[in-house]
């Protein structure tokens, strides 16, 4: 879909749907490749989207990931309904994680996700309400 808001891609995410984890990010990546965005920029967008997607699938009940692609930037908004984050500054610390062991056995939940998204993005904003959900917005310039 194209509009004044850019080229929009939106996908639903569901709790514990690990088989589908990464599919939304993969589709966003493919679209960026078709448009001809530089590969190092695409890599930062893809990594940010994938980490955010995994966060929703691991922690939340359900959510959406929405990418708006403009000529000069990509904006990704990830919103979920879930437990929220009680202490965002703690969640931003590398190594801090509330993920259970079965998530760690899959190679995630190491407490690297949010810090890595922040590092990959040019703008990063996170709002969260405990027992309601979390909204993460990142912007990456092309």
């Amino acid at each position: 879909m194209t509009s004044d808001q850019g080229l929009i891609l939106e996908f639903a995410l569901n709790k514990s749907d690990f088989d589908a984890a990464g599919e939304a990010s993969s589709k966003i990546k493919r679209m960026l490749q078709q448009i001809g965005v530089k590969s190092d920029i695409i890599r930062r967008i893809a990594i940010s989207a994938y980490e955010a997607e995994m966060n929703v699938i691991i922690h939340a009940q359900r959510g959406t990931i929405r990418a708006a692609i403009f000529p000069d930037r990509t904006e990704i908004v990830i919103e979920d309904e879930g437990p929220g984050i009680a202490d965002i500054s703690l969640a931003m610390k590398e190594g801090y994680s509330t993920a259970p062991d079965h998530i760690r056995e899959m190679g995630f939940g190491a407490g690297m996700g949010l810090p890595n998204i922040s590092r990959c993005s040019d703008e990063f904003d996170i709002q969260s309400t405990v027992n309601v959900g979390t909204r993460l917005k990142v912007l990456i310039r092309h």
Partner: protein
Amino acid sequence: MKLSEVQRMLQAEVICGQEWLEKEAESACGADLMSDVLAFTKERTLLLTGLTNVQVIRTAELSDLLAVLFVRGKRPGQDVVELAMAKNIPLLVVDCTMYEACGILFSMGLRPCGKRVMEGDV
């Protein structure tokens, strides 16, 4: 280092992607934590891992890794192999441990990827 050299030195079996073995690995990373792979690897990196789930392939795809080498003789399921083939990611398997496989490649000059995706503070 070409993947074909990696295969020869480790006597690795190619699960899929035989046709891409002339591709050049610029660095390598040994990890079972995909979060670390996403945070610390560069593109065209060879990933050595003991994990065989679908997230390994997604991680490789989304962070532009060159290939995945499974250690300790661990083999992924058919769904994982099919996704790797669809994404043009070669898969190899070796019987030796992670430590041994990394040690051999390191001693032959394949450099580590000790750099973050993005430098700087959070």
